[in-house]
């Protein structure tokens, strides 16, 4: 574990995988050599049963980071204080190194679609989200990391690109970025934009974590399904981004058609080769 170049001094945890129910027995019995685990926050907020029992054992052995899907930071509904309270309690209990969610909204009028709905990238939305990010960071007593979600639609009202919005949001609200390289690829495909330009516009000092995953290409658009291996173009984008950020904690997500743990872990560990290659290239150049 080394320090990376992010401004909070969050460590480079190495290469981790998402903690998933089907892998519980393997992880508890075999204690695999994984650098860290990421947990889906909502799966552990309201349970005193086996999931929490397993998580406590995992947290005793491995570094934990928390990743949520229901903060709805872009919504116009009030922030859910009960949710934030439980999130902080879980972070404290598991000694989570950081907490992340998505730049999106999941519902309004008290309802939750449980989807990561796209934001309009406007000045008004920027002010709104920045104030909410500050409120969340205060409630959690730690900086919030926001992930770029895969998007399938864009609003005509947007006056800036997503990467511009992210850049200004991170400055205004002093939050960090969980940079999902697969999502950059997916959204760029869906919107006909350049994923390299997206990555090159991100302030590398704000990137605290990477996500990688597989997806499903429907021809006309790509769906972020997390059900397969990472495709080569996404690995190449990851290589490009790591060259700017240095080694940053990297996590593989595999959430559907989940194979055996060894396959998921091996896919995650491919990231090590890309990180090493980048480091060798940087050393050779200097």
């Amino acid at each position: 574990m080394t320090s990376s170049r992010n401004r909070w001094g969050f460590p480079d945890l190495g290469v981790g995988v998402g903690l998933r129910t089907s892998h519980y027995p393997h992880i508890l019995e075999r204690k695999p050599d994984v650098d860290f685990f990421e947990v889906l926050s909502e799966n552990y907020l309201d349970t005193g049963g086996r999931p929490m029992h397993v998580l406590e054992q995992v947290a005793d052995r491995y570094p934990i980071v928390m990743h949520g899907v229901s903060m709805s930071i872009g919504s116009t509904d009030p922030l859910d204080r009960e949710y934030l309270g439980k999130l902080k309690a879980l972070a404290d209990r598991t000694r989570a190194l950081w907490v992340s969610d998505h730049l999106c909204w999941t519902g309004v009028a008290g309802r939750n679609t449980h989807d990561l709905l796209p934001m309009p990238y406007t000045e008004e939305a920027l002010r709104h989200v920045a104030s909410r990010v500050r409120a969340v960071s205060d409630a959690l007593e730690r900086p919030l990391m926001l992930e770029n979600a895969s998007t399938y639609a864009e609003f005509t009202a947007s006056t800036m690109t997503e990467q511009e919005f992210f850049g200004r949001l991170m400055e205004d609200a002093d939050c960090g970025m969980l940079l999902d390289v697969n999502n950059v690829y997916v959204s760029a495909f869906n919107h006909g934009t350049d994923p390299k330009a997206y990555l090159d516009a991100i302030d590398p000092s704000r990137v605290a974590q990477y996500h990688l995953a597989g997806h499903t290409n429907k021809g006309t658009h790509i769906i972020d399904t997390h059900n397969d291996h990472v495709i080569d173009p996404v690995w190449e984008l990851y290589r490009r981004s790591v060259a700017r950020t240095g080694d940053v904690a990297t996590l593989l997500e595999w959430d559907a058609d989940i194979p055996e743990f060894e396959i998921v872990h091996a896919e995650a560990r491919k990231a090590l080769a890309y990180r090493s290659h980048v480091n060798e290239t940087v050393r050779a150049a200097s």
Partner: protein
Amino acid sequence: MQAVVEQPGTVDEAVASGEASALLDPADVGRVVRASATLTPVERVGVYQGMYLLRMVEALQGDYPAVAHFLGDDAFAELVTRYVRAHPSTSYTLNRLGNRFPDFIRESRGLRRRGFLVDLARLEMAVTQVFDAPETPPLTAEAIAAVREDEWPNAVLEPIAALRALSFAHPVNAYLQSVKDDDHDHPAVTRNGTRVVVWRKRFEVWRLDVEEKPFALLQALLKGQPFGKAVARAAEDLKGVGGEPIYRWLRDWVAEGMFAAIRR
């Protein structure tokens, strides 16, 4: 956008629905959402709309696998579609989405074998509740030994949080087990009163069919009836058989970790 996403049917039907069109004329979707090189604005919103109900069905299928099995994929999806229209998720977690599902089934007139499905859904909801309930350490032998003989009549046994005792008009536990066993020779769906205890022991959820008399004693204890009164009533029910069955029931329940403490 949400007004479209939450609608059933095709995305064109969703955009034209009363709820969505009250907010945006279907002809104006292109003024709000950009087209891509391959999809129209409506088709792009349709990507989200198409996934919404699939997500809701998947969540409830996870909580109610036997109800889903009994109805079959299409009928279950249709039931869930109507359910989430009436009770959309209002929580940060999908774990609470199905909290009103048994009541909704009860009110769904015209549903085939509705009484059986209500019972089955109640049992499956109890399994979910027990799975997630807070962990309470079970009663120890030391705690039992510490109760003086003269304290037992007024002692109250406190159950663990992860325990439910339910009575049904149908043999739903047998049906649920046949689904879990992937046994397609399901028990007949007949009216036949059953009682089931659902509890968690060492982080595993267990279900047990219980006869009428021990169930009455267990329910009395769970309701907080003093130990002496509950046992006396059970002995009366047994009509002179003696105390041995009662001792055995209590011993087994304690051994299974169903109780957490004795209040004296």
